[in-house]
């Protein structure tokens, strides 16, 4: 390990021996969120009177966990097609535009993300206009265009994004881990692959849509200056979908074996990247707060000193707590352009083991909790991030005021919790290696 890296690790763990605790800071809180039962669907909202615009996430239970090996990518293809479905914004033929363009020309924006448990659409616009944007979106959602021509355009757009994904060593490494960890579609690539996308037919797409875009599969979370009409617009949107239940899905993961399986892939990268994947607790688990602390600790403990926050390319080691799928996971990556991956990996595993056998001292615990809380908050500022967290945490049992509930879980974390969670989750792992093409994998 490079001297600076080793020093940072030593400093971090050395701090754990101290016992004097700092004075606790006031507990930060987001505006209290509320839940509204709209009859056919539910809206969770956080009122922010100073927000210049407002945003709403619309979750549909049509995520990767509902895909199979034969139709991987179908969730993204449905979503991409919905964005391109023509909708009318006025009376004339010139007022019929693809959904995305219609929303843009109305002064708003629309994006979507496919994750393990859902596909979630994010609509943002002027607060007084958000309900109308939801109305436009509802039109496309109720009657999407899955014609061969529309699917061809949507497929082409996805294929370009799949290509970008394949060029990113970290994304490839995380995907390798997920594929090895999950037994269901949750382990498949979020956008599919070139091969699977090409195979998907119009009937595959229609069948998936009919099975998943059901009234009971929709929920929403919004942040901003929320008008009463928003609830009505969301209710109308849900009513536009087929009635009846959406089938239950049980996501499963393979137990991670003790001998630390190693997966290797070769890509056009300049240096090796290592992704170490661990199982992790769900947000509604009593272990959630402790895992947030460990995510923060592992993300920063190995870093060289730098006055300014290091960018992605400059970081040696980083960590992501992935709670979008059930069960959740934690990935720690090592950037081989910055540090010797073998030494960094060894150091990471030593730290993981140490954390499981020795509780943090009071000062170290306070330090890591403060840092974790700060990182959580500074990562959750935009309306998009806040509305996403609100919805995804609520759907995983943290209640309607779910972001504050996550902060409370963090604040309640004890040294014993950290040790217990390190012991339960960090001792078994899968190693995914992304190597330059010319490098021998051994």
């Amino acid at each position, binding site marked *: 390990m490079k001297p600076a890296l080793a020093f940072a690790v030593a400093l971090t763990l050395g701090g754990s021996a101290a016992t004097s605790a700092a004075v606790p800071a006031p507990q930060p809180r987001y505006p209290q969120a509320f839940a509204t039962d709209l009859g056919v669907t539910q809206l969770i909202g956080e009122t922010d009177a100073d927000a210049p615009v407002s945003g709403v996430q619309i979750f549909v239970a049509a995520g990767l966990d509902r895909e199979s090996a034969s139709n991987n990518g179908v969730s993204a293809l449905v979503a991409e097609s919905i964005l391109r479905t023509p909708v009318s914004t006025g009376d004339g033929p010139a007022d019929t535009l693809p959904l995305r363009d219609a929303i843009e020309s109305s002064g708003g924006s629309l994006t979507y993300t496919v994750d393990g448990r859902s596909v979630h659409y994010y609509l*943002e616009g002027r607060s007084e206009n958000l309900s109308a944007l939801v109305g436009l979106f509802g039109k496309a959602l109720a009657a999407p265009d899955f014609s061969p021509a529309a699917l061809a355009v949507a497929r082409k757009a996805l294929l370009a994004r799949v290509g970008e994904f394949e060029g990113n060593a970290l994304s490839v490494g995380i995907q390798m881990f997920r594929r090895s960890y999950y037994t269901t579609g949750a382990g498949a690539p979020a956008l599919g692959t070139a091969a699977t996308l090409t195979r998907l037919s119009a009937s595959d797409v229609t069948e998936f849509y009919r099975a998943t875009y059901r009234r009971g599969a929709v929920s929403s979370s919004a942040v901003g200056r929320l008008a009463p009409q928003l609830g009505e617009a969301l209710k109308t949107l849900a009513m536009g979908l087929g009635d009846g239940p959406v089938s239950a899905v049980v996501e499963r993961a393979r137990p991670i074996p003790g001998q630390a399986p190693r997966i290797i892939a070769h890509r056009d990268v300049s240096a090796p990247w290592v992704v170490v994947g661990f199982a992790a607790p769900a947000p509604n688990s009593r272990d959630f707060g402790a895992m947030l602390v460990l995510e923060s600790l592992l993300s920063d403990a190995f870093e060289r000193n730098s006055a*300014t926050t290091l960018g992605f390319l400059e970081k040696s080691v980083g960590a992501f707590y992935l709670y979008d799928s059930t069960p959740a996971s934690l990935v720690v990556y090592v950037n081989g352009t910055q540090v010797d991956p073998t030494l960094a990996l060894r150091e990471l595993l030593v730290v993981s083991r140490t954390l499981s056998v020795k509780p943090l001292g009071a000062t170290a615990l306070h330090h890591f909790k403060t*840092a974790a809380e700060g990182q959580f908050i500074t990562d959750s500022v935009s309306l998009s991030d806040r509305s996403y967290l609100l919805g995804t945490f609520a759907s995983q049992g943290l209640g309607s005021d779910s972001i504050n509930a996550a902060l409370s879980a963090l604040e309640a974390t004890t040294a014993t919790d950290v040790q217990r969670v390190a012991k339960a989750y960090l001792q078994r792992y899968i190693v995914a290696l992304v190597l330059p093409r010319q490098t021998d994998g051994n």
Partner: protein
Amino acid sequence: MVIGSRLRASALGAVLILGASAAPAPAATGDLPDLGPNVTVGRLPSGGTVIVDPAQGAPVAAVELWYRAPSTGFGAKPLPAVARLAAQVVAASKPIVGDPLGKAVADAGGRLSITVYSDSVSISAVVPAAAAHAIVKTMTTAFFAPVVTDAGFAEAQRDVEQEALISNYDAETVVRDAVFGQLFTDGPQHYPPLGVPKDVSAIGLADVKAFATRAFRAQNATLVVSGAIDAGIAAAAVAGRPPQASEADPEAPAIGTLATAVEPVTKSFVQPSGGYGWVGPSILNTREATAMDFIADYLFRSDDARSDDGVVVKQVEQQQPDSLVIGQFITLHDPGVMFVAFEGQDEPGLRGLVDDGFALVRKPMEAHAFASALDAFKYHLLSDLQTPAEKADNFGWYSVEGAADYAPGASGEAGRYFQAASSLTPEFVAEVAEKYLGKPPVVVTLAPDESKGKAKS
């Protein structure tokens, strides 16, 4: 428009000042701008300006210091990157009492960034609101009486060298620097604000000390605090060292000389890329500057967080999906600069798409399409004001450039910026496009140098 966050996100780093004789530096004790009923503007204890913008929402705050200071230093001999290095050294150095700023921000779980433009420096911390008071105190302690240590210098030099190295592989940065290098024959605008690694390693501790002492004075500072804080947070700022008689005022803008004729420039780069640059209106010509912002938004809007791409960006996505195009009007004191960069294997094809886009805006848009584009533009402005850092960036940038009350966000939608946007018409936008973009631009071409491999020339 130049919204600081967008500049930061895209690694743009250029400020150019011309005609400074017509624009004296704002006095440290002069009139304060009116930024709306919710924003407090005051004087720092030793001079300089403090802007406090409290808001509800996420429990987070942005604490920023902005300085007018040339990236190449104050001496007769330009020292590219000295401003960037000096700011990093101060943030890394342990003061007489307390932690270095960088450590204080990291311990709070926050993020510290330093961005240097041709003639300004921004130090920005995003922290949980509960830590904002302490960070205001730590940041002003560090920068209003800078301490420069050997250890801080060594650490900072390593970090800034790496930053310069990475930036030299960023097509946008390389094209931008080339555009400014051609538009200006001297002054800080002529040089890359980050320099190249050898520029950074050539700077000595004495250079850094001299720069920090002159640039990082309270009298030369604009402190901006935005987010879940109250107006009383301004009291957390320390006075800093007492000013010498010659230090009562902020720095005057550095003056660059505009090239009388622009020549095409060709450089080697890892992959085919190119770009354009034009001189545009001053920040004081708010209607024209806003029209240029509108044009940039209409043609080149691109945001990963949203799907609402500009006309040229959409064309590039459809016709050359592996390529990239970026365009922005950089609002500056005088003149502003329209800047475009593109990267992809079919460089002539990309150039054609960009040319088509500019040809489009030199004719008046159809009324309905213009109305939609203007609505979208205003929405983008508002959406870019949703975080404390975005708002603080705006207030800091427009303050340093001499028109704080023109910052998007000042006085909300009743402010000068939105008034200017509302006054735009298809005909006026086309006139402005013709006036500034109808002239021959600086043309930059980057191409792989087969004989030299991957190095930038």
